[in-house]
């Protein structure tokens, strides 16, 4: 697509530049008081050069839009990695508990989905080699996905200006053969998977006093919640995605589940972004 556009751009630039120079030379003023020949505007020409660019640009639009659509819809099966941006470093959390800073190891050939948020200001994950980029916003989750095809080390930049060390907020994506990746995984200090860390938190924060697997608890049953459609007190419905679970923990009264009292306390300020991700991962793991 890029090169198609380069071709169009080159074509028109050269066309215009060529015509200008050609006319400028051909019709250069020969006598000091000469005037131009009167040429009346041509409606046909005007329409032509309105419609042709319109058509070309619509082609570009459709193409660009479809590429974008494909980019915004990850495939069904992805390897998820959580990303937390912070002035001025990247923190990555793999599902099985592996944590890294400014380096992200992934196996070749798997579709990887990054679920990203920020602790402070807006950052942006940019891996030029994979043609992906998305802003990382505080208070929200954004996603990108990519499928590395060749082992190697690739630049990872922060592409949204975020303060003094913005240009130092860089890292590398290390793409490995699956076997190397497994070796790397087992090499790291296993702290237990993300979900199990979340499970521990769930108990520590006493979530389990209200959220129990049986139907008659004070809080809704969380088993099988993720991805389901939840009906709220107001009658509206929401899909229980990461953002919803996050909001339920930080600001429970914003969307109260139908049939429950808004008694859940807010955990705003009590849990860090990383702990939130653990809790979310735990809730997601409850099937």
């Amino acid at each position, binding site marked *: 697509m890029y090169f198609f556009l380069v071709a169009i751009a080159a074509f028109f630039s050269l066309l215009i530049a060529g015509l200008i120079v050609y006319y400028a030379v051909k019709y250069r*003023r020969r006598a000091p008081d000469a005037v131009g020949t009167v040429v009346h505007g041509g409606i046909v020409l005007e329409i032509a050069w309105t419609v042709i660019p319109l058509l070309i640009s619509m082609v570009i639009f459709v193409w660009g839009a479809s590429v974008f659509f494909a980019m915004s819809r990850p495939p069904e099966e992805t390897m998820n990695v959580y990303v937390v941006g912070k002035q001025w470093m990247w923190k990555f959390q793999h599902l099985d508990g592996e944590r890294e800073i400014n380096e992200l190891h992934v196996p070749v050939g798997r579709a990887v989905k990054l679920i990203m948020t920020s602790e402070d200001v807006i950052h942006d994950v940019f891996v030029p080699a994979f043609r992906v980029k998305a802003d990382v916003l505080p208070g929200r989750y954004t996603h990108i996905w990519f499928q590395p095809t060749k082992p190697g080390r690739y630049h990872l930049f922060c592409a949204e200006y975020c303060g003094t060390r913005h240009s130092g907020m860089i890292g590398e994506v290390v793409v490995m053969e699956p076997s190397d990746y497994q070796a790397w995984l087992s090499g790291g200090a296993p702290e237990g998977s993300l979900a199990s860390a979340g499970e521990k938190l769930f108990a520590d924060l006493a979530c389990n006093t209200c959220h129990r697997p049986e139907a008659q608890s004070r809080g809704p049953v969380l088993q099988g919640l993720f991805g389901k459609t939840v009906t709220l007190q107001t009658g509206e419905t929401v899909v229980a995605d990461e953002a919803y679970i996050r909001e339920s923990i930080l600001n429970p009264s914003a969307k109260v589940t139908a049939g429950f009292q808004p008694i859940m306390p807010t955990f705003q300020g009590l849990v860090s972004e990383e702990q939130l991700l653990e809790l979310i991962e735990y809730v997601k793991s409850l099937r």
Partner: protein
Amino acid sequence: MPLPPQHYLNNGYGVKSWLLTRDHKRIALLYLAAVTFFFFIGGAFAVVIRLELATPAGDLVSDETYNKLFTMHGVMMVFFFLIPVIPAVLGNFLVPLMIGAKDLAFPKLNLASWYIYMLGGLFTLYALVTGGVDTGWTFYTPFSTVSSTTKVIPTALGIFITGFSSILTGLNFIVTIHRMRAPGMRWFRMPLFLWSMYATSLIFVLGTPVIAITVLLIAAERVFQFGFFDPARGGDPVLFQHLFWFYSHPAVYIMVLPSMGIVSEIVAAFCRKQVFGYEFVAFSSLAIAVLGFLVWGHHMFIAGESVYAALIFSILSFLVAIPSAVKVFNWTATMYKGSISWDTPMLYAIGFIGLFTVGGLTGLFLAAVGLDVHVTDTYFIIAHFHYIMVGGTIMGYLGGLHYWWPKISGRQYNEALAKLSAGIIFVGFNLTFFPQFVLGYLGMPRRYHAYPPEFQVLNVLSSAGASILGVGYLIPMVYLMWSLRYGKVAGSNPWGATGLEWTTTSPPPTDNFTQTPIVTQEPYVYPRVEGRVA
């Protein structure tokens, strides 16, 4: 040939006769001095930026300083140079002359707008000398509201205040063009420069208030901890971007439309020919002004706006490119069978058309969402907008300045030097910014003070180009000043051009015309000289 005995320049000397003047021509010159000053400040920052980027390591200035450099570069260049430059200098000078009026509708407001502009400039300079700002010219929240510890508030107030000067200028032009046209000056007899000034004024009036409230909110948020844009308090940082770009995208057309107007004038004058498709060029100015308001979201494709919003903003962005295309084609067609002289203004106009085309076409790359994801926030963007703003607008502005210089000063500049510097600027410009397209495509992010070593070659090229460009900008300063004293007297119509401004003396008298002119025909009608058609 002597200068006319009575003109606006010798009508009163002394500081007071300038600082309290209500003559639109003198106010234009006040603006000229001020914007030139800000341009060189902004340019000096650019010089340091390019020096720093000549090596991959961040060794010349600290990262903190670098961030302040590009922020102040952007702020100065955009808000204090490029937005006011053509409307407030050439527009101020020419709008009344071109429609055959004695002055703008509200001369006092006009003077006030200059003072407001200076006040805003002072605030920003104050911010600059007391430590600078480091938010980028886009002031993205929550960085600018909760994280940055620099002088955000004075800068914001500076922009807020200057905004009112834009609003007043725009308001003045709109009213003047509606209400003060000379007898017979119908809408379709107006020179195209006026159409473009009118379209620009619309954007001033409709867009500027939104940036005013937006920067005010930033200041309020810092002072009162309001939290409109702070997620920790329930706000949405993306909302800030909506409000910011609602103005700042149309603002890019504030920057380019006036230049397009100038180019239309120059092309007609130096081809001695009617502009091809006059009505289409005129209406495309309005179309750009209106459609320009519908596309702001294309700066936020990856910023967290919804996918559907992105698609809508994308398609609308393509629509706004069409009227620009119409203009480019019409200028080219105007040259067909013209009697083209290669004077300096024409060289700049040709430079404008070429570079604007490149800049505009790369804008299409960015408007294609899928591609923008890769190149956004890289040097591709930097190259795109410098092509339009520096290669386009500044070229057009310099062309206009040269074209009307004899009218403004009554004297001619040195043509050989002028051609030389036009050449230097063109070469230096391309050398500076073309490599940046490649850099961006390769993935070099913008606002980086240090970068991976593999990008160095292209960066060095760019820095080298910038130094050539800098020299190119200095030369006109020198010979234009020089011409004020020693240039040969130009006479009222040195180019043999049409237009009311050329019917009065150079420099014009304070009241512009000895008699209110009466317009009887369309613009750009060149009388046939017997048997000498080129």
